């Protein structure tokens, strides 16, 4: 089974988002970068599948040159090779992103690659567009199941479950297919020192993608109004307990 996983480099903003000058991006100078939890699960699932069924896992990202870090992280937990579609690091809309990924997949296939399964996160952690995977599936005429949280794969088909309020919806499709997955699908492994070193030597193919005209154009980012509460401090340590009890009573959580 050959799996292609698509991931996105995003900042990890901690407790507060700050905007960079121009309001087009988050101020990231002091931040670390990561891939979203959904995508971590996608990478882990790809690695488990090839461990079980053989084949190879390729990880692809569209982003700035620095996104190499996220490809290396993914290779450190078991992906075999990387594809970096290098941009200037500005915001690409979901349709532009999908079109560039489709072009890269077609190019890889022209060079002899064959993918049986394509894995995406259900939505990116930052922009949250909920559509890149679906657009890629449409362009490549692949069956697509979104929001997958349980997966059983065989050599030629997959059984996937999606969680809804009352339980699970079960889907079954033949391969090749495209799935968008959610955190909770598995527990991603941590890389070892050795696997981190090994990942440095794995191959990455770089190219500059074509960019379609924009459809959903980012004009400006802004912060939502803050709730502006300042907590009423009830005390320190055990000494706070009497005030906590009073508050629980005031809120009707404890019977007075």
């Amino acid at each position, binding site marked *: 089974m050959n799996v292609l996983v698509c991931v996105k480099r995003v900042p990890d*903003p*901690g*407790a*507060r*988002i700050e905007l960079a000058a121009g309001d087009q991006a*988050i101020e990231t100078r002091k931040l670390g970068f990561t891939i*979203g*939890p*959904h995508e971590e699960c996608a990478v882990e699932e790809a690695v488990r599948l090839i461990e079980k069924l053989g084949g190879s896992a390729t990880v692809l990202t569209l982003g700035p040159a620095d996104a190499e870090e996220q490809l290396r992280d993914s290779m450190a937990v078991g992906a075999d090779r990387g594809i970096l579609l290098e941009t200037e690091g500005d915001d690409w809309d*979901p*349709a532009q992103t999908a079109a560039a990924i489709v072009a890269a997949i077609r190019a890889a296939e022209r060079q002899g690659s064959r993918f049986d399964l394509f894995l995406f996160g259900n*939505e990116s952690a930052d*922009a*949250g*567009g*909920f*559509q890149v995977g*679906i657009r890629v599936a449409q362009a490549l005429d692949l*069956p*697509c*199941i*979104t929001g997958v949280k349980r997966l059983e794969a065989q050599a030629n088909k997959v059984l996937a*479950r999606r969680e809804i*309020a009352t*339980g*699970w*919806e079960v*889907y*079954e*499709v033949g391969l090749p297919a495209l799935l968008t997955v*959610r*955190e*909770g699908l598995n527990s991603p492994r941590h890389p070892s020192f050795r696997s981190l070193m090994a990942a440095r030597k794995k191959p990455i193919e770089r190219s500059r993608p074509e960019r379609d*005209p924009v*459809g*959903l*154009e*980012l*004009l*400006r*980012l802004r*912060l*939502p109004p803050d709730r502006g509460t*300042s*907590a*009423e*401090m*009830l005390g*320190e*340590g*055990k000494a*706070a*307990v009497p005030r*906590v*009890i009073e*508050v*629980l009573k005031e*809120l009707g*959580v*404890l019977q007075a």
Partner: protein
Amino acid sequence: MILAFIEGERNPISPLCLQALTFARELAAGQGMPLEAVAFEREAGDLPGVLQRHGVSRIHRVEHPRLDDYAPEAWAKALAQLMDRARPQFVLAAATDRGNEILARVAAVKNLPMAANCIGWAPGSPPVVVRQRWGGSLLEEAALHAVPPLLTVAPHAVEVREIETQMEASLETFSPVLEEKDFRVRVVAREETHPEGVSLRTASVVVGGGRGVGSADGFRVLEELASLLGAAVGGSRVATNNGWRTHAQQIGLTGNRIAPDLYIACGISGAIQHYVGCKGSKNILVINQDREAPFFRRATHGVVGDLHEVLPALIEEIRRIKT
């Protein structure tokens, strides 16, 4: 005309869908356009009655012998065909799993832009929406360069309002042309789960724990407090990543969104990805030993202290009161 996608999940219209209808109606009024609706599900109760009270003037009921359960490709193709015929200027849905999926598929089929999780809009050409990024911790103003743009409406972006003077909604049947292949992705089975205990999403009190809890065992005091208060137990991503809690109990951007009367957050720092999952809480009591923890700035009540000291003392006191 503005077209709203109605979702029932087999019940009469979900609250999120009613919110999306209110949003769509305000958009329609602002644009001077009528509001119409498209519905797929057969068991959606008194659909015309409800939709009429929300200002819908025409309902397109999609009928096809094979559309008995959810099949996203077939639903999207049917909606795309309806759009070709009815020519809406905007298409909206609630930003639910299904709403996002169907509109994204239509966007892909028809090569249109789609904006997920919108909370507002501004008239003009091109139209501009305000949408959520980072689960609502950041807002984006974006222009939509095609007609009709597709929007999903973020949960709680507007409050549901019915209209005062209602008109009769006409009901029309729409029969899409679908092939076997359009049903290659469909629900083949459903499995119901019956979660034990109090559900996180509906609990009126939630006790949450993070890295500060220290271990799976450490959660026992949280469970004890929860059982005394009839509360559900949840955790931060650190708690679920460490296996102290299951992912189903995670609160945050990639976990559950909770909205209890009281959220008691123990040993959690208050990262935005956690906060977006609990910002709907009416009250937040933070217990953290670091008085500089960012969570205190977004809480209503705070206790500075070691949770493993504070919680046992609190539990003892509640027990004493209860007996």
